Structures are given as C-alpha cells and as structure tokens.
C-alpha cells in the first residue's frame, strides 16, 4: 500500500492492551469520581456530542422554517426561542468546550509528557459545572425557552422579554466557570508539568494553540460573568446600569459582553488550528513549515484578540473614532490567521502526502476557514460593515469559521486521535465519504447565505420577503446533506468501538509523545516520565526509532 501511511499490527494476533485507562476500574462511580484526564475527556466527549445534536436539531428547525417566506412552521416567538437556544447551546455548550475539553483534555498531559493535568479535581469540577449548566439550559428550554438571542442584548433582555433570561444567564455563567477551570488547568500544566527535555519550542503546535486559547478563557470569561450578573440584577432588582430611562447605557452591556465574546471566537477556533497543525504535519510526513511563526501567531491572535471587541458594535452607536481604532486593530488580528493558512499550505510542499479522513477534513478546514476569515475582513472594514452586518452575511461568515473551521477541525481531530482514545480504527472508506458529504453539504448550506446577506436579508427573521426564497431553499437542502454528514460519524464511530481494526500504538506513524505509548493509554499515561530528546515533528527520529526497534526485536 503506497497510498497510505497507516501501519496496523497484525490483526490476527493483535489485542487491545489489557491494562488501560478504560479497563482500570469498572462501574459508573469510577467514572463519576475520576480524576483521570482521559476519562474526563470521554465524559466531555459524550456530553458535548449530546448538546451538539440538540443544537443541531434546533438548527434543523430553523432551516425548515426558513424554507418558506411566511412564518408557517412555527410562530415568530417560537422561532425566536429556537434560534436563541441554538446559539446558546452551540456557542457555550459545544464550541467553547469542544476541542479543549475533549481532545485537549485527553492529549494535553500526554503531549507535554505528564501523568495528568496539574489539577485533576478541578478538571472534574469543570465537567460537573458544565453538566450543571447544561442541565439548567435544558431545563430552561423545556420550561419555555428564552428569546433574547445568544447575545442577551440589553434593554431587550432586561426589560422587554418575559422568558427565562435569568436561568439561561445563570447556565451560561456556570458554563463560563467550567471553561475558566479548563483553561486554568491547561496553563498550569503547560508551564509546570512538561517532562525533562520538553522545551517550549519542542511542544506540539496543538499545545501552543490550546495555551493561547486558555489565556483567553482565563482572562475573558470573568467579564462575561459580571455582565450576566448585572443582567440578572437588572431583571430582579431593577438597578438601572443598562437601563436608558434610569440613565444607564445599554451599550455598556455590549462592551462587556463582546469583551468576552469576541475573544471567545478565538477560544473556539484556536484549538481547532492546533488540530490542523498536527494533522497536516502527520499526513505530509513533514515538520510544520515555520514552526515558530505558527506558534507565535497563536499567541498573537490571543493577545490581539483582546483589542478588537468593538468591531461588533460599529453601527451601534459607539464613537466613530473608537470604531476606527477597533477596525484598524481588527485588520491586524486577521494577519496571524493568514500566516497560519499559508504555513499549512507550504507544509505540504515536498512532503509525502496521503489522504486519510483527518487530512480530508483538514483540507476542508483550510478552504472554508480561508473564506470565513476573508469575509471577516469585509465585516472588520467599517465601510462594508454598515451594509453587511446584521444580515445573513454575518451568519454565513461565522458559520464558515465556526462550523466550516472549528467543526471540521474537531472531526479531523476526533478521527485522528480516535485510535489513541479507543485503541481501534474507524472505518476508512465511509469516513472519507462522510468528510466529502460534510464539505459539500456545508457549502450548499452556508454559501447561499453570503449572497442572501449581500442582498440584504436580515438575520433572525422568522419570515422574509419572497424574493429571498430560492437561496433559502438551497440552504435548507444543504442543511439536510450536512445533517447526514454529521450523523454518519456517530454511526460508524460507535460501530468501530467494537468492530474497528486494532490500531496499535502508532497507526499514523506520528511523532507526538502520545503516539509512543499504548492505545488506549494507561491511566498514568507513561510507565515512567519520558525524556524528550528530539524536536517536535521529527520524522527522522521516528524512523530511527522504528529501525532500532525492529533491530532489537528481530
């Protein structure tokens, strides 16, 4: 087989190692009280998939409603609740924890050569907070929902709606602390738990990008928390900070909200970028082109990410001078993303490329993220922002970044590390099909929305002028394809848990520390703490390693 790098052990004799983190202890309680980062990652994976499918069904309802210009499937306020819950669940319960809390949680300690995250109890607490928040959100949804949109814009959310704003706010508040604890744990682990020889510039780029995202989580989330506390107080006591009739400024809320929520989009995308770095390198058998540039561009995104929040408010009545400054800074933050894209592309140069599923998803990511990123510049430039903001253009833009970018990266990473997590391979052919279906479905769903937005169709409309119908039909049709694309992995990944081929330690011949141990790993990851004696992505080292192994065994 010359067109794949997959090396599997002889299936006739191979066995899943008897001792591993899954088999160590049995029983529900051993999971619920675990401190093992890998088990917590699995718990997270199950819970975020659950929320993803709730959010996804809500998205399906939205697309179904928009099939026709009238609001006929549901009443307008039902529609408002549906898109609000879709946004809240997808943003706070799926995208923010997606890669860091699952793949990151599983791999971060192994990548830096540690036995666990620095604070295992805090890690578990983070999952419990997430679950508490999630249950509160579900309760809210069942008991009537909320119709403020995920942005909780004041004074609408404080004085003009009658739905469950307080419980939703509380749910998001708690979920915020869950993500603070994850981020805090990562930062401490990366600083203090690296194994001997693991210098900063030997860290895999996945670690760098998660590090950058963690900084944003730790510093940004508390501001969202205080903004939500003020909303709750405004609704319960009536304090007036955001109430124009009492002299408050409703825009202040948006300042505080976007101070978190803009960096939050980097929280969502940065870990995805980390996944892509790993995958692209592994499947082209080459060190990432310009390792330092890619590493520092992550940090640059994190730092600049704090200076651009008001670009969500260009037409909202901030001072025009401030708009200029924020627009300029927005242009600066776009550059590191461009650097990354080109560096990944050039990683392929003179590589030895194979096209397994993770790589297909990564290609999808690169294309879609380029579009998503470029259209972000349309919105960051004050002039075009006037016309395009608050329309379907912006909806398409952030779905290209979040779904086209982040979700592709998530699926890429999930397939890539699936053998490590479960010890078994996913079925290759059908998963390649799923990747292609997802890509096609995605473009069909969201590309028409760019045109819709340019034509002026406002977002969050339950009904719309009939001339927009054609493009909406395309979009809805695409959404069904996309739905199939997302259902397939659930089916075959579940199937592979029992019937997948035994993967062995390192099916991809990848260089990360996590690939040098058994899969699924031991509870303590490494029998003894490894010593890092080579650079990251050193495929020649791996070659030598394999040769010497063969020599000693043979």
């Amino acid at each position, binding site marked *: 087989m010359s067109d794949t790098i997959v090396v599997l052990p002889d299936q006739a004799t191979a066995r899943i190692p008897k001792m591993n983190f899954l088999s160590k202890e049995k029983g529900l309680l051993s999971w619920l009280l675990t401190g093992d980062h890998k088990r917590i990652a699995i718990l997270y994976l199950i819970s975020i998939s659950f929320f993803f499918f709730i959010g996804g069904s809500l998205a399906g309802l939205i697309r179904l409603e928009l099939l026709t210009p009238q609001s006929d499937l549901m009443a307008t306020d039902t529609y408002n609740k549906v898109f609000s819950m879709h946004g809240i669940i997808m943003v706070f319960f799926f995208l923010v924890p997606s890669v860091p809390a699952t793949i990151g949680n599983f791999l971060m300690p192994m990548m830096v050569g540690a036995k666990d995250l620095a604070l295992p109890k805090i890690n578990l607490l983070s999952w419990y907070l997430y679950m508490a928040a999630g249950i509160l959100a579900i309760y809210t949804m069942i008991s009537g929902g909320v119709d403020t949109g995920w942005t909780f814009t004041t004074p609408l959310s404080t004085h003009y709606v009658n739905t469950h704003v307080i419980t939703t706010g509380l749910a998001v508040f708690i979920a915020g602390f869950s993500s603070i604890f994850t981020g805090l744990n990562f930062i401490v682990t990366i600083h203090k738990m690296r194994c001997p020889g693991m210098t900063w510039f030997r860290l895999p780029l996945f670690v760098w990008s998660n590090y950058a995202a963690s900084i944003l989580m730790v510093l940004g989330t508390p501001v969202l928390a205080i*903004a939500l506390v003020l909303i709750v107080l405004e609704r319960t006591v009536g304090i007036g*900070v955001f109430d124009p009739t009492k002299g408050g400024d409703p825009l202040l809320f948006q300042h505080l909200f976007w*101070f978190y929520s803009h960096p939050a989009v980097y929280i969502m995308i940065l870990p995805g970028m980390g996944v892509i770095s790993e995958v692209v390198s592994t499947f082209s058998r080459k060190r990432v082109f310009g390792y330092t540039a890619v590493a520092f561009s992550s940090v640059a995104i994190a730092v600049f990410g704090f200076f651009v929040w008001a670009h969500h408010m260009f037409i909202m009545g901030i001072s025009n001078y401030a708009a200029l400054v924020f627009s300029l800074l927005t242009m600066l933050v776009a550059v590191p993303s461009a650097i990354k894209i080109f560096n990944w592309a050039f990683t392929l140069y003179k590589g030895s490329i194979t096209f397994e599923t993770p790589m297909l998803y990564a290609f999808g990511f690169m294309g879609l993220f380029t579009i998503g990123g470029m259209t972000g510049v349309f919105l960051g430039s004050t002039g075009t922002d006037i016309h395009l903001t608050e329309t379907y253009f912006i909806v398409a833009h952030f779905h290209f970044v979040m779904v086209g970018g982040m979700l592709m990266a998530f699926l890429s990473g999930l397939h890539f590390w699936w053998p490590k997590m479960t010890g078994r391979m996913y079925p290759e052919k059908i998963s390649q099909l799923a990747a292609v279906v997802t890509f096609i479905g995605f473009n069909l769903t969201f590309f028409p929305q760019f045109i819709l937005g340019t034509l002026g169709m406002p977002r969050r409309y339950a009904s719309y002028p009939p001339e927009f119908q054609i493009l909406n039909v395309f979009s809805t049709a695409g959404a069904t394809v996309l739905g199939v694309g997302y259902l397939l992995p659930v089916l075959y990944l579940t199937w592979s848990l029992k019937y997948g081929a035994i993967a062995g330690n390192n099916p991809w011949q990848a260089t990360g520390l996590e690939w040098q141990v058994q899969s699924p790993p031991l509870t*303590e990851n490494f029998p003894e703490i490894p010593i890092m004696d080579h650079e990251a992505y050193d495929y020649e080292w791996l070659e030598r390693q394999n040769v010497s192994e063969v020599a000693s065994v043979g």
Partner: protein
Amino acid sequence: MSDSTAIAHGAVGAEHEHPSYQRHHFETIAQQKDATNFAMWLFLLTEIMFFGGLFTAYLIYRNWYYPAFVEASHQLQIGWGTANTAVLITSSFTMAMGVWSAEMRKKSMLVFFLVLTFVLGLVFLGIKFVEYHEKWEKSHVPGLRYSVQSFVNPASDPEVYKEYHDKPLPLDMARHTELYFFLYFAMTGMHALHMIIGIAILGFMIFRARAGAYTNGHVTFVENFGLYWHFVDIIWIYLFPLLYLISRHQ
C-alpha cells in the same frame, strides 16, 4: 485513581506514601507546590477581570453623572470606611503572619493568627453591615427602597448637610444617585461575598490547623489562601478611595 475521594481543593493532600501530601501525578513536591501556587495566581487573574467590569461601569457613570456621584458619596461615612480599611489591612498582616507560622511549623501560633484573621474578617463584615443598615434606613438601596430626598433637598439630611453643605440637585441629576448606590452595593457586595467565602474557608482552616495539617511542611494551602485574602484586601484598597474619598471635594 486511588485518591479520587480526597477533598476537592487543589492542594489538600491525601494520605499515602512519599510526603503524605504529594499527589501521584507530580514528580516532586516542589513541582506540586509550584503548580498549585501558579494556579492560584491564574484564579486571581480571573477575579481581577471579574471586578474589572464593575470598575469600568463605575468610571463611566462617574464621568457622566459627576454631581450625582459626588453628593451620593457624601452619604458614606469616611470614619467607617477608614476603620474598615485599617481592619482589613491588619487582617492581611495577620494572614501573612499565619503563613509565616505555618512555614516555621509553629502550630499554636498559626492557629492564633488564623483566629485573629477570622475575627478581623468578621469585624469588617460587621462594620459593613452597619453601613448597609444605615443605607436601608435612609432609603438608599437602589431597586428595593430608594428615595432621592437627601439629594433634591440636602437640608432634610442634617447629619450629612452640616458637614458638606451640598447644594440641592435638580431632579434629573438626583435620580442618577441611584446608579452610584447600585455600583456601591455591587462592588462592596461582591467584595463582601468574597470575604464571606474567605471567612468560611478560614474557619475550615482553623479546624484543620489545630489538627496540625499545615505545620508538617505542607503549607501550600495556607499560602494560596493567603494570596486570596490579600487579593480581597487589594480590591478594598481601591474601593475605599473610589467610593469614599475622591468625591469629598467636588
């Protein structure tokens, strides 16, 4: 996973091998100490940003409604504020001494300083309660019980009037004193909440300290709690001038 039932705080040790308080996934005790200490600092960062939102709001509205903020702040008694600042600073000192005693492995001294910190914390809350109570009496609790009487007609409030001789505020400005009081309650309330949490943990620590839990060389928990306590002190160091002092003169 054998320690999965141990107490949930980052650094509290579980009982087995090594130094008994070293967690299995750390290589050395120094690494554990380093890591938890750093984690505490990161947690304090989130706290800074949490209060950051309130400070921003305060600065904006003070700029907008300057006269209202000035006269409303005259309602606070600098005497109580100063006393509270002194109490809190002293409690910070006793806490620092507590950490020192733990490091020197002096058990009874540690307990003494922790108790002192505990008491000073309670004194702070007591004074705060007196102040809050006064606001309630004078109907200066925004949202729940509020009247602008003291500001549209300062003479009706002789105690404050004889000290400041405030001019009456026009009604539209006087209404904005409510924003000041809200921010006052939000900031000091959030601060007091942190104090209450701190005092609760202190109580727990006194209990454990008497059993000798922190004088066996494992001072991380006391040390990290000290960081938290000092941080709460720092917040107050800023709240005191912002709320009480800077508007004494217009």
